[in-house]
């Protein structure tokens, strides 16, 4: 393999990983607060169609990202209201949110398919990225750097700040947090909204970063992979980064296999397409064999908070 090809692969891997990483970071914060939102895929689709329509109408990529975040946040409020205010079943509500996001985005995107938009260009001026090596560092769009900054920011927030400590306390022992005087429901609302905004931005990555068009269900289960990655990373941001790039690598291999030629095309392209999902299962198995994965899970994950009982 030539150095150019290796660099091209690295750049593709980083791009493919970014939406999964952003969505998974949001879900990590949500789960650390003790809430399991399985609606990531639906919120991503709402973000994706919002970003597409905005960039199609205005051509402004950053406005598109901002409004995609707002749309994701708005969608997450449905989940928040049902599960936090009405203490509905989180699993069922999350599934309903994904069904809703899939239907809503398809409805809103009617008539927008096969219309091209432009991708979000690199953040740094192209002079910085003339040499291939520099491309690996400076050749990406703002979304890629945003994802990396958020890894550090969320790690710092959870580990070093008082607010992060409160969030973890709410996820580990909601009754104690409540008796000290913290608003369990309030903290969880904020976490769910943050997760929604991140899922919206993750959805925006699809039309702005990967394929410059709208297609129904274009997130293709990546939201679910993000949920799985949070478990894989045992709720730690830096492990999430490693996991997301690993999955980006698997997905990039599919692209190269489909493009034909080379040793990858010996295997049917459908197997490559199925690989990220099979790899998720394999990874879940591996972490379970290595140690009890659930030991690091927030103790209150998925349980509704009912102080009056």
């Amino acid at each position, binding site marked *: 393999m030539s150095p150019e090809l290796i660099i091209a692969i690295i750049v593709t891997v980083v791009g493919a990983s970014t939406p999964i990483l952003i969505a998974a970071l949001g879900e990590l914060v949500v789960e650390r607060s003790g809430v399991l939102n*399985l609606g990531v895929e639906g919120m991503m689709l709402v973000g994706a169609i919002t970003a597409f329509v905005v960039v199609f109408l205005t051509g402004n990529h950053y406005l598109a990202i901002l409004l995609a975040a707002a749309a994701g946040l708005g969608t997450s409020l*449905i989940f928040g*209201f*049902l599960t936090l205010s*009405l*203490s*509905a*079943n989180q*699993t*069922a*509500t999350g*599934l*309903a*949110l994904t*069904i*809703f996001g*899939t*239907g*809503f985005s*398809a*409805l809103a995107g*009617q008539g927008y398919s096969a219309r091209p938009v432009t991708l979000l260009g690199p953040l740094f001026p192209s002079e910085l990225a003339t040499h291939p090596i520099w491309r690996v560092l400076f050749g990406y769009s703002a979304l890629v750097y945003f994802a990396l900054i958020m890894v550090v920011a969320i790690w710092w927030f959870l580990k070093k700040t008082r607010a992060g400590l409160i969030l973890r306390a709410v996820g580990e022992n909601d009754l104690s947090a409540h008796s000290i005087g913290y608003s369990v429901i309030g903290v969880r609302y904020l976490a769910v909204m943050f997760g929604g905004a991140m899922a919206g931005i993750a959805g925006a990555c699809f039309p702005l970063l990967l394929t410059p068009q709208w297609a*129904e269900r274009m997130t*293709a*289960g990546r939201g*679910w*992979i993000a*949920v*799985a990655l949070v*478990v894989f990373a045992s709720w730690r941001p830096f492990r999430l980064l490693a996991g997301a790039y690993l999955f980006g690598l698997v997905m990039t291999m599919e692209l190269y296999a489909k493009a034909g030629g080379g040793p990858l095309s010996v295997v*049917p392209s*459908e*197997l490559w*397409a*199925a690989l990220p*999902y*099979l790899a*998720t*299962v394999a990874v*879940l*198995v591996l972490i*379970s*064999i290595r140690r*009890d*994965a*659930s030991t690091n899970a927030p103790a209150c994950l998925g349980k509704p908070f009912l102080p*009056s*009982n």
Partner: protein
Amino acid sequence: MQFRLEKRREPSKVMVYATPVAAVVLTMVVGAIIFSLIGYDGVGAVREIFLTPLTNSFKWQDLGVKAAPLIIIGVGLSISYRANVWNIGAEGQYIIGGLAATWVALATHGMTGWWILPTMFVAGMLGGAAYASIPALLKTRLNVNEILTSLMLTYASVQLIYYLVRAPWKDPMGMGFPQTRIFSEAARLPTLIPGTIVHLGVPIAIVVALIAWFIMSRSVFGYRMRVVGAAPHAARYGGFSENKTIWLALLVSGGLAGMAGMLEVAGPFQRMVPGFPTNYGFTAIIVAFLGRLNPLGVIFAGIVMAITFVGGEVAQTTIGLSSSATGVFQAMMLFFLLAGDILIRYRIKRVVPAAEVRA
């Protein structure tokens, strides 16, 4: 005026049955308003989606054919969810069931005999159950979350269809289309009423639901599933093994999803095509909840869901509404249902502020 939630002494029986009905009605009302607000013919959409399939007798056969797989899969899921086992990969088990039945149909191509359809039926159920046994094995042995594994396997199974119809199972006379050859007469489900599309799967769905209702309410198996789901600690004291329950829940729900897959491929499809996954497995999740995880309720919920599917197609042709609007209506129904669940455990009380009392 302010309202407050007050806990009921015991769960309300009335609300258990009233909330699904209220959810459907609210979906129609709120749906009409929202769709009008965003620039569609809201009232027309609700009329076409919810009422036309009922008033137009030509659509009744479509209702039966669409409801059958939803009921069969929904019954399985309701049993599984009762036991707190979250199989959300029914779509994948439906696909593998359909593929297993296709394999039998292709292997017996050109043959005749009464035994072909029953063999396909068994193959479909075994295929679905086998696929569901992967999450069951991983859950019981390694405590791997069954939600994620069953769902990931669904995405993988879609690729398996694509591969099989593109290469080994491709119809040699199909002019390059990625699909299998059409099944022989002996491998196709007979239609029950001549001149309609109503096939054997429709009565089978009703029978499946009735048997499941009987088993769930009258047998030790049903008792086990309900107790493990509602009170896992008590179940452990009572000697019900949690692992055995997980296995049973996944095998039953997977087997029924596989049965639905067989009935679909041998009935409406009559061959395997890339478009075989039609989201019945996902919609059946809503059906199970709307039916209150009760097999008899699932019959009604399956029919309601079938109405929205058939109505969605009607609305597409009559008022040009995208078929994806159906998904929005279905999700809204589930939202309202989940929101209404709180009324089973709580009642709404009006709070009179102190100032108002004095005045």
